[in-house]
């Protein structure tokens, strides 16, 4: 580790001359951060949704699946990435396998809980109206579970944005690379820029998804 032996007390929190010269660099890191996050959340959703439906429809699977998911979720992110390095190296694949695993675990729980929150009367009514299982799932149950699912998507997105910074330690990282550069070079400006942009990205994404939820669930607007 190229850890600087001393902390430079005279180094200001931000050096504007350096900042303005590196704006294109920040943009590239930000874009990379967004890409890593979007891939992780979208893939996670694509994998978690069928698993959740399976756990919801086939009861014996529910508790074991959620329990195993909860336990895997406790694995520290750095350890999870470290597990993969011998097999996939310091690559995007390693980062994404790790990130997708965490989003699956978050989304799985929320989708199952959301589906279970559909009132039994609604389900009865749908059956009485002659809905087949698949149509009932797609047109009745999933839409009604949307608030819980979207809550999961928001948590997964914000969590992933934070976790992406950790992947800087395995050579990826988006904005995390700026944080890591600040650590290794003992230079505060990239550290501050990376942190501020990462937090701003997380808050913005959360807000954007909250807005998206309002748009796709027009029936829920009056209640909240």
């Amino acid at each position, binding site marked *: 580790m190229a850890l600087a032996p001393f902390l430079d007390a005279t180094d200001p929190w931000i050096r504007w001359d350096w900042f303005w010269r590196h704006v294109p660099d920040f943009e590239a890191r930000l874009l990379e951060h967004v890409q890593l996050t979007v891939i992780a959340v979208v893939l996670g959703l694509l994998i978690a949704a069928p698993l959740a439906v399976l756990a919801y429809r086939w009861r014996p699977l529910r508790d074991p699946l959620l329990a195993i998911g909860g336990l895997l979720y*406790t694995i520290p992110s750095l350890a999870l990435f470290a597990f993969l390095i011998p097999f996939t190296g310091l690559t995007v694949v390693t980062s994404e396998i790790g990130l997708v695993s965490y989003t699956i675990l978050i989304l799985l729980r*929320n989708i199952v809980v959301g589906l279970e929150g559909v009132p039994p009367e609604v389900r009865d009514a749908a059956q009485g109206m002659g809905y087949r299982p698949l149509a009932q799932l797609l047109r009745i149950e999933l839409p009604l579970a949307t608030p819980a699912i979207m809550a999961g998507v928001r948590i997964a997105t914000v969590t992933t944005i934070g976790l992406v910074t950790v992947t800087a330690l395995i050579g990826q990282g988006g904005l995390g690379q700026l944080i890591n550069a600040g650590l290794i070079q003992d230079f505060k400006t990239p550290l501050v820029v990376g942190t501020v942009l*990462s937090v701003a990205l997380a808050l913005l994404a959360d807000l954007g998804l909250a807005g998206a939820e309002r748009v796709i669930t027009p029936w829920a607007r009056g209640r909240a």
Partner: protein
Amino acid sequence: MAFVVSVIAWFANPAHWSGSSGVPQRLLEHLAMSAVAVTAGLLIALPVGVALGHWGRFGNLAINVSNVGRAVPSFAILVIAFQVFGLNNYPAFVALTLLAIPPMLTNSYIGVRDVDPEVRDAARGMGMRPRRLLVDVEIPLALPLIMAGIRTAAVQVVATATLAALVAGGGLGRFIIDGLGQRDDAQVFAGAALVAALAMTVELGLSGLEQVALPRGLTMKSTAREVAAEPDLAVMT
């Protein structure tokens, strides 16, 4: 296959099990660092959360602190704290304590807030003063959620304490960070296995403790688990 052998060899090497950089010493450092942070976080989060829940005020604050906390990467806090405090134990302590506060604050707030109003009424009808109501009724009924919050915080802290090695701290993260630096994949993997095993042990141990320590009528299954239905808190329990 050769890799599996090298990992087994790492674990079998007695040099890795003794001295100041051996597994037992690193495990102790990891646990001590985590315990101090969780305790400090609890001393801050519990009174605030319980008070807010009791008065039913500033609820948004108690809930938003979790959401904002999630948005700030612990990695960044750790490096910033390192810049502020330098090469000692404070960076890890500060970062881990800040990480521990949100789940405990949110859960203790919701636990106390959601005590059945009829139970509160009954307690008042029996002549309980506010203080006794809080200590004898509200806090005990909130215990399952409070303990779930402590468990969540503890698991997150134990997991994140791994990163302390980045700022020259100790703990099991040393094996991973040093292994990465030395391109020693076997050590990286062994370190990851140790950390993962520890995090899972803490999770299982604390949830076992909850089952044993909580009064029968209050076990997680019937009450607190259902908080997951409050979507924002789905990962809190």
